[in-house]
């Protein structure tokens, strides 16, 4: 087949794809794209007018331009993909940006794939709603049952013998665990349903942190842990959702307390770092194994070892923290040493 005919039929093929495709050279100039990409990204006038032009001139989506630039500038062999979800107009796209390398592994450009996930998102939403409904339905009877067992244990309706008390205490602890789980699931659902998007306000992180710390005093005293809080004066406000930021603080500090033995130390520091508010939560706890680190933000993942077997938890705490950080366009980092302690550092951008 002559070259021209081959090129034409290739163009026909990529224009027939239901996904959008966009290829750039190493300088970020657009060298190939199809009709779907044109439609998704609103690249204006059709007829492939954007060919040969820099991406930033024809794509008004900063996030996407940022990803392509990152792939092209961060030229390292193991950096093979950037993936993100993007809402453009009414469509939700899953975007993959990959580097293109020639046979000598030299970076020659980037390829972007845009996949419409609106239908999938809709199904996902139904599932989240269902989960949240089930949790709400369970919460009310569990709350009642918890109160009933508390009242039995209080001895208001008569005293128990030691064995009975012991059994009842165990029942109560189990119910308490279920209530905690339900709360965590509802926190996850709240974020997945986009609840954090509907109530956005200016947040004084210092104030929220202080209140959270007050709420946690009983746990701190129970375990006899020294809690140091250091908050820089006059921190900038950030824009965000109050309840999810609260949930983030609670889970970070709760974890620090939980995985730190009695008499240990937990430090919470908040400061300004470039255009971010930085929150650092460090403990003198049991620390994390290197191999566990990639999975600690996964839902329901819990480190299983002799050191953790007596520590109860739902495995949702850090996944909540991560999704709150993501929802606020922030970043989170963890440093840890077995037997020495762990430090989580969160950066939330000031906008």
């Amino acid at each position, binding site marked *: 087949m002559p070259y021209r005919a081959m090129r034409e039929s290739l163009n026909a093929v990529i224009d027939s794809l239901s996904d959008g495709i966009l290829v750039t050279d190493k300088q970020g100039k657009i060298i190939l794209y199809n009709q779907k990409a044109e439609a998704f990204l609103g690249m204006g006038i059709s007829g492939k007018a954007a060919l040969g032009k820099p991406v930033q001139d024809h794509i008004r989506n900063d996030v996407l331009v940022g990803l392509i630039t990152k792939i092209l500038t961060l030229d390292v062999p193991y950096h093979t993909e950037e993936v993100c979800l993007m809402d453009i107009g009414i469509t939700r796209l899953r975007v993959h940006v990959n580097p293109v390398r020639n046979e000598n592994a030299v970076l020659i450009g980037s390829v972007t794939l845009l996949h419409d996930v609106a239908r999938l998102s809709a199904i996902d939403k139904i599932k989240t709603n269902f989960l949240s409904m089930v949790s*709400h339905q369970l919460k*009310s009877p569990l709350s*009642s049952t918890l109160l009933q067992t*508390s009242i039995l244990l209080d001895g*208001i309706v008569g005293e128990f013998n030691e064995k009975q008390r012991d059994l009842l205490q165990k029942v109560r602890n189990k119910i308490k665990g279920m*209530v905690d789980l339900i709360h965590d699931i509802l926190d996850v659902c709240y974020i997945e349903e986009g609840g954090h998007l*509907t109530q956005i306000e200016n947040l004084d992180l210092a104030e929220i942190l202080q209140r959270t710390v007050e709420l946690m005093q009983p746990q701190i005293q129970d375990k006899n842990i020294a809690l140091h809080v250091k908050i820089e004066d006059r921190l900038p406000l950030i824009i965000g959702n109050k*309840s999810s930021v609260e949930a983030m603080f609670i889970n970070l500090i709760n974890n620090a307390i939980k995985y730190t033995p009695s008499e240990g130390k937990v430090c919470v520091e908040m400061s300004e770092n470039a255009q971010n508010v930085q929150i650092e939560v460090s403990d003198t706890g049991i620390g994390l194994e290197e191999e566990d680190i990639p999975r600690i933000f996964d839902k329901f993942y819990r480190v299983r070892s002799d050191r953790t077997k007596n520590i109860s938890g739902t495995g949702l705490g850090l996944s909540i923290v991560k999704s709150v950080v993501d929802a606020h366009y922030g970043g989170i980092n963890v440093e840890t040493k077995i037997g020495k302690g762990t430090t989580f550092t969160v950066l939330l951008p000031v906008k």
Partner: protein
Amino acid sequence: MEKKKILLVDDDADFTEAIKLLLESRSYDVTAANDGKEGLKKVQTEGPDLIILDVMMPEMDGYQVCAKLKADPKYRQIPILLLTAVGEAISTTGYTKEMGMRIEADDYIPKPVEPIEIVERVEKLLRISMRKKA
């Protein structure tokens, strides 16, 4: 001294029973109502010293009952303790905006709740209201 009268408005019978046992053991006189409407009626007939009000109820929810009572000069001074589910304390602001009414509860407490906490809040609210009257 005369027993203080508490009106408990909650649609969960098990919860109501447990709170009743708890508060009666502390020498309070407790009357219960199953929903918001019945609650409002009992405010008139029983004349409680304090109202414990669940937020989530069919027919008329706790916020509406609270707003009605706080708008009525005759009942405004009765302290109200709102029982919210976790996560609702935050949505209170959202609710306030949506419904265009302010929630003027005297105190609120998230469910699930520890017996000791209920007792402490009730004592505190009654103390404040006694002082106001005096």
